[in-house]
């Protein structure tokens, strides 16, 4: 039972770990280069999901300031404990810190999800797309060279040639 | 095997070997520079 709650409490972690392993498996074990590329993308996406999940808090809202409105804060204060369960307490505090610096002392950071990981992932997505593009371009060149995308067939050709 | 005619190697070869052979003999009668240096070296190592 404890194990079950342990797993459920960190469900997002388990999800990303499983996705990551799927990607890694495809990267290492698959014979077809395009399948490998797909695996690589899954692998990268897993990390992106992981980041997104650590920035998220149950019931929190998007980080756009609600000027002159405080009902959101009261309603969501109860969920502070959930945030702690997610292991993101420090994150939340950090966000509070940052917002306070920005001069909005009245705003309760607990009300908002942490935007930083999401912003970081924008960059990571761009990187991922670029990597995918380069990989596909290379795969095309490989196909032009060998007429196949199966690694064992390519190796066969390399040994014979 | 060889005729009794003297036929040495080129002069450039013979001169050096005469020089070194002479020095070898000379060193028997006058070993001072090397002997002094050697005993000086031994003195620093062994003391006294």
């Amino acid at each position, binding site marked *: 039972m404890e194990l079950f709650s342990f797993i459920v409490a960190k469900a997002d972690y388990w999800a990303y770990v499983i996705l990551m392993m799927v990607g890694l498996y495809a990267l290492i074990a698959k014979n077809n280069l395009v399948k490998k590329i797909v695996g*690589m993308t899954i692998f*990268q996406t897993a*990390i992106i999901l*992981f980041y997104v999940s650590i920035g998220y808090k149950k019931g929190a809202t998007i980080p756009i300031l609600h000027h002159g409105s405080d009902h959101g804060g009261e309603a969501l204060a109860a969920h502070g404990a959930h945030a702690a369960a997610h292991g993101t307490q420090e*994150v939340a505090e950090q966000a509070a810190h940052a917002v306070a610096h920005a001069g909005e002392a009245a705003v309760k950071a607990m009300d908002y999800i942490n935007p930083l990981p999401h912003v970081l992932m924008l960059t990571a997505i761009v990187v991922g797309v670029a990597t995918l593009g380069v990989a596909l371009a290379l795969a095309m060149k490989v196909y032009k*060279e060998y007429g196949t995308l199966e690694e064992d067939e390519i190796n066969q050709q390399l040994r014979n040639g | 095997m060889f005729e009794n005619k003297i036929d040495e190697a080129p002069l450039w070869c013979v001169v050096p070997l005469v020089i070194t052979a002479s020095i070898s003999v000379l060193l028997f009668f006058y070993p001072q520079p090397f002997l002094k240096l050697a005993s000086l070296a031994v003195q620093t190592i062994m003391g006294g």
Partner: protein
Amino acid sequence: MTSNLPALVIIVPLLASLVAAGAGWFNRKAPFYIAVIALLISFISSVLLLAQVVATGVAIEYQMAGWPAPVGIVYVIDHLSAMVLVVITFVAFVNLIGNRQAVETEFKNKEGAFNALYVLFTAGLVGMTATGDAFNLYVLLEIASLSGYALIGLGSSRAPLATLNYLFLGTIGATFYLLGVGYLYIATGSLNMADLATIIPSMMNSSTILFAFIICLTGLLVKMAIFPVHGWLPGAYSESSTVSAGLIAPLTTKVTIYIMVRICLTLFTPEYTFGYIDPTDIMVAIAVASIIFGSLSALAQKDFKRMLSYIIIAEVGYMVGGFFLGNRMGVSGAILHIVNDAAMTLALFMAAGIFIWKTGDEKQSSLKGLYAKMPFTMAGFTLAALSVVGVPPTCGFFSKWYLISGGIAAGQYLFVGALIFSSLINAVLFFRIFEIALFEPFKSHHHAGDEEDKVESHHGETIVDPGVIESAQQYSGSDSHDHGAIVIKEPPLPMLVPFLGVCVLLLILGLYSGSIVNNIIHFAIPAGII
């Protein structure tokens, strides 16, 4: 101006890559000059930065766009990063000017793309070195990697496949690093390295931090191609064109090792890395395996660049092992070897470029008779080779000295043995080449007699400089009874001079290694490491 130097080092090549790519459409020569000028500016700026850091003894912190740490991204130039910046920009600059001919022939009609990628790669490495932000590091790592993949992919017909393998492992490595940074962020809420370094000592026992450390380190180890995750390196380096290999081989692994040093010392702090985790035994064991595997595999190679690639794997072992010895001697040796090995690898790959220019392929057996044909080139190559073997007073000896001293002090005699073993193997490797080049008569893969013409026509124009002809006459004059008529034909001066310059630098680095260690590396290592 001086206050913006840290930005200049990276912004100039970054912008230049865009300009060069565009200029390629209008003028075929412009991209090369743009790249050279950008790299030169970057090099001069980094030298000035190093001078400033050494003179003041204080690290320079530069806030990008004026946002202060820990919110904004800061670039930190301290002794260590300034030194590595100089290495990166120097290697990139010299390799490009030394290989101008090869660039013009191998990348015909792709000048814009090639030069842009070349400069972009350098910008990525420079950024990785200078940045004080853990996530920014990831982004720049990927910028460098992506342009690196593209550069390598432009190589031989086999290059795309090798590059794809490199890309897969490179992505795994970088993604692991990203994951590690994520865990760090969870635990500490910060991405700024200096900020992290103040937080981590207070949460030593956190398993999240431990996990982050392990994942980050694993990612970097994959990136630096240590045994057993080295598989991508030999293929990628030997199939790429020599210009690209001359840029990527000396820098990628070395900068990754620098990142490892930076992460372990600046981010996780020595107290955590060596005090709390103490990974010496296992990391040194991996390093030893890498050294021995790299050396033995190099022995089996017939292709010159491939042999160099395996030597690089062994050298990675030197540095990783030396760093994780965890004492001042070992860490000094590892950091010094970043500089020295970059210079040595650059020299050897430039030599490879000249050999390929001369013989048309890169088999060791094609190097026959080269001592007679190109005495100056071979003198430089000999010097570089001896440096890899570790003969004093070349720089290779001195980094090995520190590494071995560190190994003895740490009681890691296996590591000491591996270093000596690898020196001996390197001696065998290079003397095998010396033998071929010295004892076997020159034979071209072209038809006998017209090889000189072939080389010339193959490369379009050949710059004949008066010095070469003069020395050729003088040699054939004084030793006219040498085997037939060996005509000395050195590569053109724009190729030869940078190469020989790097070779002489190996000596200078060796003789002044004491000053480098005392004035730079000494300050780069936290006082806690004794």
